[in-house]
């Protein structure tokens, strides 16, 4: 069994990493010369996805935020109710949720990068 301190260390590190990565992500919306809405135009967004280092940033955000967010949800749900059935359901729900979101987001990053 994974020790709780290992899980919570991951919680800390993904949280700190997410701050940096999300800041980069927001900068990509704000530093476009023609402004925020221009940065959201189809061609610009596709160009973002084709930029491999930025796509990597997106993938990292996806993983860190999904892990941090679903672990946070796990913590809240574990504190809400106790019992072995509930706790293992919470564990699998959160692992499943994180995996599903990461898989779906990765699909977008890969497909958009190939367009």
């Amino acid at each position, binding site marked *: 069994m994974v020790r*709780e*301190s290992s899980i919570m260390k991951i919680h800390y590190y993904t949280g700190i990493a997410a701050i940096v990565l999300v800041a980069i992500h927001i900068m990509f919306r704000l530093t476009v010369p023609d402004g925020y809405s221009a940065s959201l135009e189809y061609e610009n967004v596709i160009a973002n996805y084709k930029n491999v280092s930025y796509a990597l940033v997106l993938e990292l955000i996806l993983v860190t935020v999904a892990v941090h967010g679903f672990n946070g949800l796990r*913590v809240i749900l*574990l*504190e809400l109710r*106790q019992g072995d059935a509930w*706790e293992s359901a919470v564990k699998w729900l959160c692992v499943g949720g994180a995996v599903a979101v990461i898989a779906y987001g990765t699909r977008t990053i890969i497909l958009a990068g190939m367009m």
Partner: protein
Amino acid sequence: MKRVRIRVFRYNPAHDSSARYDEFEVEAERWTTVLDALLYIKAHRDHSIALRYSCRMASCGSCGMMINGIPRLACYTKVYELESDVITCRPLANFPIIRDLAADFGAFFAKHKSMKPYIINDSVDSIDGKEFIQKPEEVDKYLQFSYCIKCGLCYAACPTVATDKRFPGPQALAQMYRYLIDSRDAATDERLKVVDDRHGVWRCHFAGSCSMVCPKGVDPALGIQLLRAYLLGMNRGSKVVAELYSNKK
């Protein structure tokens, strides 16, 4: 002197299906405590009210109750300081009710015991006239936490205890740190293992409510953060297990 209305929570789980409040008007002086007022009511109005108290001086930790929604010691809370004409007394939150204002401390004490609240050190067996030497700085690391009177106010204030029945609570975790950081204790790893649990120290999110209500300045939230920091590998060098020292000439 002022007249205040005291609302007392009345409930006996053995035959009541719901709780009610009984109200009493009493006169309070500047020095009247809520416990004084309750004991006056018990002596002159309704002797059937159940409440627990002993020392009347914030030492025994028996008279904790929710007074106007916040856990406080009845003997340590003056009627005047509440600045209200109505005072509502309920049993401590997060403790099962025995009757009226008397709460059941069984689970709370069991959690305290599960923290092994005693010095664990094999060399104690060979103590034989020898003693541990502790410097004042080493005493200061745990002294504050040893002032805990187990009144349970922190346990009643904690938002995690409010929903997580497996969480040891601020009192027990602060006591774990009190023994962990005591230089006479050698069971550091064993102690860390107990609290590094799914419902252990990690379920504290530093809401600080425990320290807000503690009547003895224990600051359990500080103890818990230091315990977690120690578990995270911080300040490891700060604890050196003391050796037995003979002072026989």
